[in-house]
């Protein structure tokens, strides 16, 4: 089945220790998104790629970076995680960036910062 895969499902890191989360997709979608979701809150868009074009949300901290080496893979790098970065990180894809297209979400990576 075509899907969005996130690894790892659970990640524990120490305060200030860089961490990388990965996402892969078999849907061959042009757009890949990274969201941050804290407990009992809506997903918050961090950035997205339309193909290779990177789009950063204005309020995304500089501590968060992303890479998309090819169509299938996208990475979220947190350079110096703080306690406030503990959250569920969701990767999503859509066929193109039009607002009317369904976004397909992965199961998420739950990040714990000690």
């Amino acid at each position, binding site marked *: 089945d075509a899907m969005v895969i996130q690894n790892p499902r659970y990640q524990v890191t120490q305060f200030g220790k860089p961490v990388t989360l990965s996402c892969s997709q078999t849907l061959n979608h042009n757009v890949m998104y990274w969201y941050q979701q804290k407990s009992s*809150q*809506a*997903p918050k*868009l961090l950035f997205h790629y339309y193909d290779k074009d990177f*789009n950063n949300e204005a309020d995304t901290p500089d501590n968060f970076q992303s890479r998309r080496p090819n169509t299938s893979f996208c990475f979220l790098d947190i350079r110096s995680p703080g306690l406030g970065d503990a959250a569920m990180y969701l990767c999503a894809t859509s066929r193109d*960036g*039009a607002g009317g297209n*369904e976004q397909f*979400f992965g199961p*998420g990576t739950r990040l714990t910062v000690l």
Partner: protein
Amino acid sequence: QQQVKQSPQSLIVQKGGISIINCAYENTAFDYFPWYQQFPGKGPALLIAIRPDVSEKKEGRFTISFNKSAKQFSLHIMDSQPGDSATYFCAASRLYRDDKIIFGKGTRLHILP
């Protein structure tokens, strides 16, 4: 103006009852209104969506009602089942390239067996 306001924050409904979740928006440029369903430990998944050229859309037990003049829309779950227990997010966006979805804050629904 970019916000989507969702209520209630949590909802408990008896099995077989009707669950109703309401949302309101300000930006009249929004023209696509999806609902996403999220089970614990999973990512959200599209449940049903509506465009403002219709006032209602029904898929099985799930119905979206849309009131363009009031800038409100709601999700009705008929014959609610324990398997419907999840968090529901309403959302809004515009139908052109590279526009993000604005999510409501979510409603945690619990259906009593």
